[in-house]
């Protein structure tokens, strides 16, 4: 039985980090730590002796993390992965998903691969959830604006709710715009005029 791999996830985005933790925790092969707050990163990493460090590829502070990681003692110094160390296809998938990995020298490919695959899947899942959330938020905001625009029309032109909406929709169609855009313009104009 080999020692469990110690995987450290550096990610200020706690929810995403925990998605990875949950997925890997089921196996006895891994021990997982999450670092969300990056002050004192050097000391904390030094105590942890990680085998694999996972970092958000898009984090602007990634260069700082890399300096800290490469300054760890020689025995426990994970390095950025390069072509000769791993399979190119997998790394491209990781980069596209937004995962970057630092791995201790000499760690076998077959032990790295499942960890990366899991991280990639979880990053994708997280991105999807986030996109859905954004879409819902936008839809809610648009709905609110449309309701306000309807209210304005009902009041100033003495229309029923259905007629107010019909007017908005007709104007949008005539101008080749979205109903929410017309509603937004109306609300803005009303704000300026009243």
């Amino acid at each position, binding site marked *: 039985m080999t020692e469990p791999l110690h995987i450290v996830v550096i990610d200020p985005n706690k929810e995403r980090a925990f998605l990875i933790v949950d997925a890997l925790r089921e196996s006895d092969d891994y021990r997982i730590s999450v670092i969300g707050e990056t002050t004192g990163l050097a000391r904390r990493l030094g105590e942890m002796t990680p085998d694999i460090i996972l970092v958000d*590829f*898009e*984090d*602007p*502070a*990634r*260069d*700082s993390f*890399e*300096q800290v990681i490469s300054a760890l003692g020689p025995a426990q110094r994970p390095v*950025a992965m*390069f*072509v*000769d160390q791993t399979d*190119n296809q997998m*790394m*491209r998938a990781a*980069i*596209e998903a937004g995962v*970057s990995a630092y791995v201790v020298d000499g760690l076998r490919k077959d032990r790295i691969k499942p960890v990366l695959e899991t991280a990639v899947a979880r990053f994708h899942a997280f991105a999807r959830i986030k996109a859905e959330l954004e879409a819902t938020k936008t839809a809610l905001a648009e709905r609110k604006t449309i309701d306000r625009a309807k209210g304005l029309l009902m009041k100033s032109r003495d229309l029923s709710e259905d007629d107010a909406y019909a007017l908005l929709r007709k104007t949008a169609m005539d101008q080749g715009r979205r109903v929410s855009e017309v509603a937004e313009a109306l609300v803005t104009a009303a704000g300026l005029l009243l």
Partner: protein
Amino acid sequence: MIAVLNCSYVPLVDAAPLIVAKELGYAEEEGIHLNLSKETSWSSLRDKLMYGVIDAAHMLAPLAVSLAKQGVIVPQVLSLNGNCFVAGDELAAYLHERAMRFNDAACLGQCLVSRGRVRIGVPFLASMQALLLRYLVRKSGADPDLVLDFVVSPPSLMGAKLQNGEIECFMVGEPWGSLAVAQGLGQIFLTSSAVWQGAPEKVLAISPNVLNMKSSQIFALMRACARAGRWLSENRDPGAVAELLAKPDHLDCAAELLEHSLSGRFILNEQGHYGIDKRALVFGGPEVSFPWVSQSAWIAQEMQIDLAQSHVGFRPDLYRAALESLGGAMPAASSKLEGALCHPRAVSANKDLVLGPDAFFDGQIFDPD
């Protein structure tokens, strides 16, 4: 069908040759569709290049040299110089007390040494910023490891780190120095040309496998960048260039901030004092973009990388092959004495070619042989 080349850059003023190559249509004229994307960190840019996600990149010259062993190729230099040294209030007062004038590198070197230990922000360790600072301290008579505590930070956070005391000063590419001044967080004391007037700053780096598969497209990109560099060096209107670079697709910032390095006229502090340095950031044709083997040898020596000649990565042969058809001047040699020119001087070439000054602050000459 027109060939697509994917190329990444870090949003800095010196990414201008790539942005201009695309925006002014040079890339299209050379027969490629240049697909530009921005990266948030040098590590990410490097990884994308190494794994073939992108074909080419705007890269720190020392980072490219450090990757030469892994096959990264540098066929062209994109810019010379271009970094600003910015000090926070406390260090600024110390420098003023010692009568530090703008771009007096010898004085800055003495001050850093006498200060003892200095926490200094740089964007990356394998960078010209770090190498020039180490050179400055060493030639001022001290061990750089004992004087300089490098703190690697994204340029966007340098101002905040000055403010909270995590660093006392920093050296980064523009517009980040000018931004710190505009926000009242620090003062510019020096541009990196004061340490070395001819430092290769950003290079065009090509991923290991791309050259074989797409050499004609890479050559087209090089011609487009060379033409863009020439246009930038001949342009008399920094404001217009600044507007182009500042667009949301590119640097996405206030255009005024970009004008300082493009015009060589820097605002140094909140009092509005000016510093003029026409070599602060240099673009151009072969006098700038020729990849001298001696430049990479200097970098390799400073980084203590033992690179066999064939591993150095800078490839004048590719530069000649790609740019021959443009019909411009081309140096006869591939290597030169770095630091030998205090003034512009004509050199041996097929046509008139004048190299700009490339002196080091201490007058030393680096002989690659």
